[in-house]
């Protein structure tokens, strides 16, 4: 103990420095450097058999030259086109945006009334109700998605139920379609929409609603003119929390999607491990980062503008 004490006191300066230094170094090694490797490989050719990518600095004519090309990015747009005049890369990006957008929309349509009613429910039962929203979040994500595979299968519960009721005669294909993709994604990301919305709606001042009704507005009008505008920050936060992870979703399309439901994550994987085209996989990944950062930075910009406006008031 005395020894440890001396050690700590003697080297306290080093100790203080390493409090910051250790995590800093860690992030530089495992976040910054990999990012630059990704960027660097995305700017090169596929190498020969031994090297999956070619070197960036080459020794030609007695001097070192930097040898980069943006072919990988261009080929994302100009590679062999399919019947719709789009490359599979562009197609997968568009599809990812489509699914992310629709999932966000569905989560909002289901989650907004839910959070609204939850915020208006009996205060004594609210903690339990809220906990019930979070419990599925703590159980395996993979297993919850897998359950839908059984539920939506051709011989699954939903099809058998529909046949039993008499709506359909033969099983319809639910799995491996847009439908199963959207159900899976909405199911997984719904709590991400509910929690920020609830946090926002529960703080809503009820007197404002009462004032509106006293002044003669219908409850429908009150909802659209008072409640919704006041909860805008909750809507935006929830939408970001759903939209961003949806864009890069990998597991759900692999389990619930068919051959046509290819999203960017899957394409990156296939380029890397099936085609072994590392430069193109890296270019796809960098493009994907841009797609994620863009909406985020717009959001941050608007947030800081708002904060500034508040401060200047």
């Amino acid at each position: 103990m005395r020894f440890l004490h001396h050690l700590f006191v003697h080297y306290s300066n080093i100790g203080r420095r390493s409090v910051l230094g250790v995590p800093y170094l860690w992030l530089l090694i495992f976040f910054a450097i990999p990012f630059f490797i990704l960027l660097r490989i995305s700017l090169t050719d596929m190498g020969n058999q031994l090297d999956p990518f070619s070197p960036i600095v080459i020794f030609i004519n007695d001097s070192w030259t930097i040898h980069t090309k943006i072919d990988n990015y261009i080929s994302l747009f100009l590679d062999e086109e399919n019947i719709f005049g789009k490359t599979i890369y562009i197609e997968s990006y568009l599809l990812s945006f489509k699914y992310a957008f629709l999932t966000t929309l569905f989560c909002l349509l289901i989650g907004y009334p839910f959070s609204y009613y939850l915020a208006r429910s009996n205060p004594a039962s609210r903690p339990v109700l809220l906990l019930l929203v979070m419990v599925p979040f703590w159980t395996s994500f993979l297993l919850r998605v897998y359950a839908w595979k059984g539920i939506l299968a051709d011989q699954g519960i939903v099809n058998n139920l529909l046949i039993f009721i008499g709506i359909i005669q033969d099983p319809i294909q639910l799995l491996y379609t847009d439908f199963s993709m959207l159900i899976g994604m909405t199911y997984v990301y719904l709590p991400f929409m509910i929690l920020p919305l609830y946090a926002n709606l529960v703080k809503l001042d009820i007197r404002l609603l009462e004032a509106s009704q006293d002044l003669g507005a219908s409850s429908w009008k009150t909802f659209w003119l008072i409640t919704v505008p006041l909860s805008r920050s909750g809507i935006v936060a929830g939408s970001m929390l759903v939209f961003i992870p949806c864009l890069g979703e990998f597991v759900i399309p692999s389990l619930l999607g068919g051959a046509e439901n290819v999203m960017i994550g899957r394409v990156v994987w296939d380029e890397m491990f099936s085609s072994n085209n590392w430069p193109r996989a890296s270019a796809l990944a960098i493009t994907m980062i841009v797609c994620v950062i863009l909406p985020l930075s717009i959001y941050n910009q608007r947030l800081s503008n708002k904060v500034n406006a508040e401060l200047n008031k």
Partner: protein
Amino acid sequence: MKVSNFSRHLSSIWLGTVYLFLYAPLLFLVVFSFNSTRQDSIFTGFSFRWYQALANDSRIVDGFCLSLEIALITATLSVVLGTLASYSIVRFSNFKCRTLFISMLNAPLVMPEVIIGLSLLLLFVGSQRLIGWPDRGAMTIVLGHTLLGIAYASVVIQSRFKEMDMSIEEAAMDLGSYPYQVFFLVTLPNISQSLIAAWLLTFTLSFDDVVISEFLSGPGITTLPQVIFSYARRGVNPSIYAAATILMFVVTVGIIYLGLITARKNKNTRY
């Protein structure tokens, strides 16, 4: 404010339907894990055969042990590094490239896991070529999970640091404690609850992760989610339902236990 009967009914119907939507798949997993046949639409009879099959499946058992090991190390490492990072951000108001540090720390929260996996894979392959280390396996998976884990852990720990009363630390200093004593005897006990929360969160993240593991695992190294993922892509396998049921049981018991503890603590502090 008057609430009409109609909207009260609508409220309970909407809440009920969404809870049904959230819990139907979990219920499905539990019920059909006890089914006596491979059927997954008709309950043909009660049996434990899928639990036996689970216990005899060496891939699942090995995967479970490996995942447990990886999650334990990841959670501990993430909490230690997350504490250091949070402490730096909250207490050191200016140091070189503070913004860079904060954005590197938070970026994994929004980065698609595919990109984290791919970029780390490229790093490990590169360093393997350069210095012959590290081989891909359990350790590279831990490193990948920890990158994500630090980000989540420091979100939890930072919020606790911010609301902590600094004057008790100053009091300890005034009374003659060395900085390291203040940290271990005053600061750490004060944030211990957030450390536990962060540990549990990162443990769950790591135990559940499949994408980063898929990128970073080596030959013969498969975590439990990877085993489940490969089974799941092949089709229906009720053993997985059994595994899910056990997992859900453990989580539910854990949540109830933690809930009781915090409820009791709140009661004690109130009086």
